[in-house]
């Protein structure tokens, strides 16, 4: 009985961690280039919605995944137009993108579906399973194909950031943009690339919630996961594998919290809901002592050296 509980806990941890890893990896890519993307919460929500909408009308959840990637990339470019080309204040631009993207998602949902009593359902991506006949591993590995992809993506991202020419350009642009530009690297182009790919990954994280986990769309589907990703990036010190680890820890607390809620103890369930947030803040305090922000973080770059 207790093993069954533990197995369930591990399976839930892997599921809960998936959107956080996707969002965290996307945000890492963007922040490595020197941009803080507070649009993440809105991009996740619009990603979840566009995946839902495309699946609803096309019938195939993979179309939904594709739609989310496309929408995320477009929102990344919008963020780039504001913070890279115009060099505007990144905090407020990001919040602007979040407000706009969330507004668009809720507006369009209401337009198509009104205020339904039961949220319209869509087909989900289903499950993949390794060694289904084995009792323990079978249950743990019963996961969405997106979860499998996500766990492969983290080491891949590590290689991309630290061992490829693109990764080198990315880090150069985020640390010392002037030097990078002198070495013939286009700071603007590299930052746009990071926002394009990062935005797509963040939206994919949102898509997981609608087309893999819930099979529906609700207004509160993202519920602050974007902000958790921002915290995870700092906690993981901008390293993909550490972000994977951080996401698993967070998801573990979240999964445990869900189990504790059902047990009750006569304590209002909100106390358990607040636990992951409080632990995240505590973890940030611990991680911050060795946090190494990218050198040019939050600094717009203009050719000719006039930053402003």
């Amino acid at each position, binding site marked *: 009985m207790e093993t069954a509980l533990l197995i369930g806990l591990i399976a839930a941890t892997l599921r809960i961690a998936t959107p956080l890893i996707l969002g965290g990896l996307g945000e890492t890519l963007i922040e490595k280039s020197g941009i*803080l993307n*507070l649009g993440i919460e809105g991009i996740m929500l619009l990603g979840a919605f566009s995946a839902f909408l495309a699946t609803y009308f096309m019938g195939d959840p993979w179309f939904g995944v594709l739609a989310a990637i496309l929408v995320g990339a477009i929102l990344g470019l*919008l963020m780039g137009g*504001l913070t890279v080309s*115009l*060099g*505007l*204040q990144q*905090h*407020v*631009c990001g*919040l*602007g*993108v*979040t*407000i*706009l*993207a*969330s*507004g*668009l998602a*809720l*507006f369009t949902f*209401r*337009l198509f579906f009104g205020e339904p009593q039961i949220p319209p359902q869509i087909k989900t991506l289903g499950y993949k399973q390794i060694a289904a006949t084995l009792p323990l591993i079978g249950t743990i590995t019963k996961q969405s194909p997106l979860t499998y992809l996500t766990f492969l993506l983290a080491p891949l991202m590590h290689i991309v950031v630290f061992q490829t020419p693109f990764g080198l350009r990315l880090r150069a642009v985020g640390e010392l943009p002037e030097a990078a530009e002198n070495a013939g690297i286009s700071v603007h182009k590299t930052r746009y690339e990071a926002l394009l790919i990062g935005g797509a990954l963040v939206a994919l994280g949102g898509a997981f919630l609608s087309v893999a986990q819930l099979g529906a769309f609700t207004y509160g589907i993202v519920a*602050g996961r974007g*902000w*958790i990703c*921002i*915290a995870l990036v*700092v906690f993981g010190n901008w390293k993909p594998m550490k972000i994977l680890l951080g996401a698993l820890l967070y998801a573990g607390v979240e999964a445990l919290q869900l189990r504790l809620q059902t047990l009750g103890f006569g*304590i*209002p*369930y*909100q*106390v358990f*809901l*607040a636990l992951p*947030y*409080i632990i*995240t*803040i505590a973890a*940030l*305090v611990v991680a*911050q*002592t060795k*946090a190494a922000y990218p050198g040019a973080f939050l600094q717009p770059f203009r050719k000719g050296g006039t930053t*402003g």
Partner: protein
Amino acid sequence: MIKFRIAWLQIATGIAAVILSFIVTSILVLAAGANPLEVFYHVVISPFTSRVNILEILARMTPLIFTGLAVVVAFKTGFWNIGAEGQLYAGALAATWGGITFSNLPALTLIPLVITLGFAAGALWALIAALLKIRFKVDEVVTTLLLNYVMILVVGAILNGPWRDPVSMWPQSPRIATQACYPIIVSRSRVHLGLLVALAIVPIVHFLFRRTTFGFEMRTVGANISAARYAAMNVNRAILLAAAISGGIAGLAGVGEILGVHHQLIETISGGLGYTGIVAGTLGGLNPWGTLSATVFLSTIETGARISARVTGIPTHLADVIKGTLLITTLAALFINRYQIGRKLWKQHY
């Protein structure tokens, strides 16, 4: 003369931002199969055509002035307080507690006491993030955002725990003492004394930044933190002060919602007022008077979006889309002003 021209251009770029965001949103309206001109008439003009709607704008403005000013104080000091939402809830929680606990006090002592409690609660909640920033260098954007969720859950836990209505079992607190309630200042409306409190804070914030040493230090820290350090200013004190004042003002928004509107604590007391405050502050160019004007505009489109939804069937979330687009176009307009691109164009033309 030049000064006049710059002011004129600022207004012109502001109007251009509004027009641009309406063009963008009209694409959505067209896609929804409605006439953009008709929708925008309902959103922008019709709120001013009846007494009820004008009073509705005033009622909606009230909490927004507080959260907008909270953002002005923090952002001007370079303290990125995204936590007005949580600080509002903290203020509402403290106000409710005061209004229930000290029910034997007369109005003249009870209301100031409750206002002080609400201000203090909001300030304390913001100070957590400020202290973590100063002591451990933890980015305040992340902490203020996360603390929003924590405070909303704290309120939820109290409403579902000790304060749960024993009869109806609804998650709502007992009602506050009658004499603690803000009086309604316009008959047959929801406009309460909180509006006057909000309007009084506007010149105070203006005075703080323009006429006091603390305000000057806060402005300097926000504009150029190295210059502030070089001038031997106490940067940490400026940040703590900004956080406390900002959080306190956001707390007053919660006080107003309790004393003036709900008279008891419920879980859905804000619904994003803290975040809309960021839009108001930015639209107002982080200037208290500008922010006040921005709250008029934002409350108008929110009132108008409801009218438009009734008449044309366009979802009220149109107001959110307009808000987001407007925030982005305003930032772009401020950029044009800062680099005086407009002035160059003007010179070329004449």
